[in-house]
């Protein structure tokens, strides 16, 4: 107890939650809102679907943020144990929603992808929720199978089957981006939970082969690959979006053309306020802006990993894996999104977490941050000698 008292009294642990985690997350959310507004003004004003209202996306994004933050407040009240208890049901619920999206008449098509469930005024994107549910489920699964983690049959196979189910639903939409993120989360957690390294290596190999097959079989994906390899070869066709994104980066130079000054967002760069938000940031705020965004993601992930390490110290296995799962999620998704924007990775539909426009994404990101803060808060409570 003496030792514990000393930890509690150490000055850096005075606060109830990690302030850097809170601030980096809030900074990303707020920069995201400003940039979504900037990227969408002309697009919204120029389009009749959006009532020619330049604030169309800003208003919606702000409302989503409010809902997300309210939900985060509520989620923070829920003990981690409760999340753990709910995790299988949430996972099953997520699968049901993913299946509902595919039901004709229920799911909503946008640009040839059926990813949304109309919910009165807003559209729900189950794949976004599924990312959080997979984190919770995989963490719970790993904790339950901790003792048999070496077993291929008992630990790996059940998860593999679950992922085949989820993955096939996602690819049916299709939502290749979410598929990659969710698979990364699930197997990342298994790996962190102690799955045999050799088994994991084989798994990665298999996955790479599966990706290769998918890409070769589907011409739509192959097109996107070619576009990414050399966007200038067919700059007005396949490489159109990426070439405009790259031009935006080039125009930004060091300090950017100034907030609001992007030309690319003026109908040249498609999806400027969602998938290609970073390109607008790069053009308007320059290399400096991009560094700040990458730095904030880095800081956020670093803080999450610190929280997870604290959990390990406190022997909170589920919480540790949830935190690490969320770190993988945000890390993988932000890397893929930014990599796509910069032409490092093939173009696929993935938003920039915490920043891009999209109600379900913002909502579930807020809830995930709330769960992290709850974990951190419970850690601090435990270290102060209280039981939660």
């Amino acid at each position, binding site marked *: 107890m003496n*030792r514990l008292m*000393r*930890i509690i009294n150490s000055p850096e642990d005075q606060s109830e939650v990690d302030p850097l985690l809170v601030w980096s997350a809030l900074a990303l959310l707020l920069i995201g809102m400003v940039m979504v507004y900037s990227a969408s003004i*002309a697009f919204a004003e*120029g389009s*009749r679907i959006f009532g020619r209202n330049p604030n169309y996306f800003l208003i919606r994004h702000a409302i989503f943020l409010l809902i997300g933050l309210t939900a985060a407040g509520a989620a923070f009240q829920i003990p981690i144990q409760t999340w753990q208890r709910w995790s299988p049901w949430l996972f099953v619920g997520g699968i049901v929603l993913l299946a509902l999206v595919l039901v004709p008449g229920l799911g909503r098509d946008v640009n040839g992808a059926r990813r949304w469930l109309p919910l009165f005024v807003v559209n729900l994107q189950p794949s976004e929720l599924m990312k959080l549910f997979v984190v919770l489920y995989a963490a719970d699964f790993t904790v339950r199978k*901790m003792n048999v*983690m070496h077993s291929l049959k008992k630990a790996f196979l059940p998860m593999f089957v679950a992922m085949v189910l989820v993955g096939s639903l996602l690819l049916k939409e299709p939502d290749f981006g979410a598929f990659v993120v969710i698979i990364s989360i699930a197997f*990342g957690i298994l*790996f*962190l*939970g*102690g799955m045999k390294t050799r088994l994991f290596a084989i798994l990665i190999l298999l996955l790479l082969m599966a990706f290769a097959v998918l890409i070769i079989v589907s011409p739509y994906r192959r097109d996107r690959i070619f576009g990414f390899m050399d966007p200038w070869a067919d*700059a007005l066709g396949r490489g159109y979006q990426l*070439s*405009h994104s*790259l*031009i935006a*980066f*080039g*125009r*930004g*130079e*060091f300090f950017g053309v100034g907030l609001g000054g992007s*030309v*690319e967002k*003026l*109908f*040249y760069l498609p999806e400027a306020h969602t998938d290609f938000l970073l390109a607008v940031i*790069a053009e308007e705020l*320059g*290399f400096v802006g*991009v*560094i700040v965004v*990458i730095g904030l*993601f*880095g800081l956020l*992930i*670093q803080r999450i*990993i610190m929280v*997870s*390490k604290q959990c*390990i*110290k*406190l*022997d909170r*296995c589920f919480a*540790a*894996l949830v935190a*690490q799962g969320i*770190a*993988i999620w945000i*890390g*993988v998704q932000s*890397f893929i999104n*930014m*990599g796509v924007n*910069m*032409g*490092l990775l093939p173009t696929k539909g993935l938003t920039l977490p915490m920043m891009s426009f999209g109600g379900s994404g913002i909502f579930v990101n807020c809830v995930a941050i709330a769960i992290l803060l709850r974990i951190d808060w419970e850690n601090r409570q435990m270290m102060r000698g209280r039981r939660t």
Partner: protein
Amino acid sequence: MSRKDHRFTESPVLKDQLASWRIHFVSALIFGALLALVGRAFYLQLIHEDFLQERGDARYRRVLEIPASRGKILDRHGDMLAQSTPMRAVWATADAKLDKEQLKALGDLLEMDPRQIEKKLNGDKNFVYLKHQVSPDAAARIAALKLPGIQMDREYSRFYPAGDMVAHMVGFTGKDDRGQEGVELAFESRLIGTNGERTVIKDRRGQIVEEVGSERPPQDGEDIQLAIDSKIQFIAFNALRNAVDKFNAKGGSVIVADIKTGEILALANWPTYNPNNRSQLSGGQLRNRAVTDSFEPGSTMKPFIAALALDRGKYKFDSIINCAPGKMTIGTATISDAHPHGALTLAQVIQKSSNIGATKIALGFPSEDMWTMFSKVGFGKPVGLGFPGEVGGRLRPWQTWKPIEQATMSYGHGISVTVVQLAHAYTAFARDGDTVPLSLLKTKGQVAGQPVFAPETSRQVRLMLEMVVSPEGTANKAAVPGYRVGGKTGTAHKLVGGRYANKYLASFVGIGPISDPRLVVGVVVDEPVGGHYGGDVAGPVFSEVMGGALRTLGVPQDKDSTPAALKVASTPAAASAAQANVPTGAAKKKGAH
């Protein structure tokens, strides 16, 4: 205190399973990936940016032309004859999707039916002009509507304040602001100017987002100042129109030229058109007859034969030529005078316009001499005003002339000229025997002429021409009160399908004032009805135009304006005296008739 000390539950499984190398490995991957992104951003934004910006410029940087304002066309006093006003052309891109209200607002401003606009927008073109020549005011209000896909280009509208009066002279421009007729076409290269350029960045829908760099301002076209005097043009135009009306003629032309400078002070044609509204335009209206229509001039040719005769010393002012009995046969053809004459002096041949007299003189010269003289005064080749469609008439090479042709040419048949050529040729009589090049543009000072006749020859021919407008001459209706003037009538049968028909071309070309010539005026009336003699039809027009022009120019009168004081000289001695404005020997010529 070591890390292990923190653990209060000694779970061997957990310690083993959540091995810290795994989380370190994962974080290393994530941070490595983020670092790679930083490197990539650095490359794109700070190293590769020139290439990328160039690509961007190719997509949205556009060089726009700033149209240069077309030069003005002015008369000799600076009065406006043609002027460009900036207007807008409104066009739409394929993005233009307007709702009912927007269509109505646009329709109101464009003065178009909204349904018509909608029809144009719904066409399958990427680009459609909604309306040309929209006023700058309406254009500004359209721009304020901020309609998607509705764009505007600067263009000019050409306005011709003098309208139909100077239409053939000034000409007009087409929709593209390029000259199509008249001076507008002749001086296109000077009027047009050089368009400027500005570089802009456009959004994908074509709206200009920003200006890049400095613009190159347009170089406006040069103003062209014509020799035309609007007042004289007005006089000439009205006189012509009245004559055409009175004689129910097909058309006509009038030219007034300053013989000191060669400047064309007026050039009018009928029928004409309104250059500001050319919706219904026929070729007949459009034709600048004065330069494009050549005709057989008839007796207006005779003074040249007289001049040749004087110049060569073969005849004198009062040499007698027997013109009886008013008929003459050359080969199989017979030449006759309208009224038979007896013996006439050379001057009277002109005064009475005797074909027989002219023929007899002409046949005394080799055809080559006649041809050379005709050629020297400018027949057979365009005057070279620069007008589109200018013709030079017909003057066949002398080698092919038959005697009958040489005979008819002496009184203006078998040769064709334009009224501008005639006026030009008559400058040789108005000046000291030299022709002056005619100019559409205002010139500075006097111009060197092209010598044809001896100065004395010209002086004597002037006196013959003055006799024509005396009561005994063929054109006393051409006389001008207050001024001594002279000229020659022409009454030519028109050639219709290669045969001479009973249709006439009445003309009069003359000089004034005789004591110190200043102007040449040429008048042609095409197919007059109810009178066809040049003296009766074209003479009064000449009188009105010459008198009006001389008064407008403030040329001092050289004669009492009372008809009783009419004095005409008929001998060289008297002529010399008359030149000095001393009235002598007026009675002498009466006996000569």
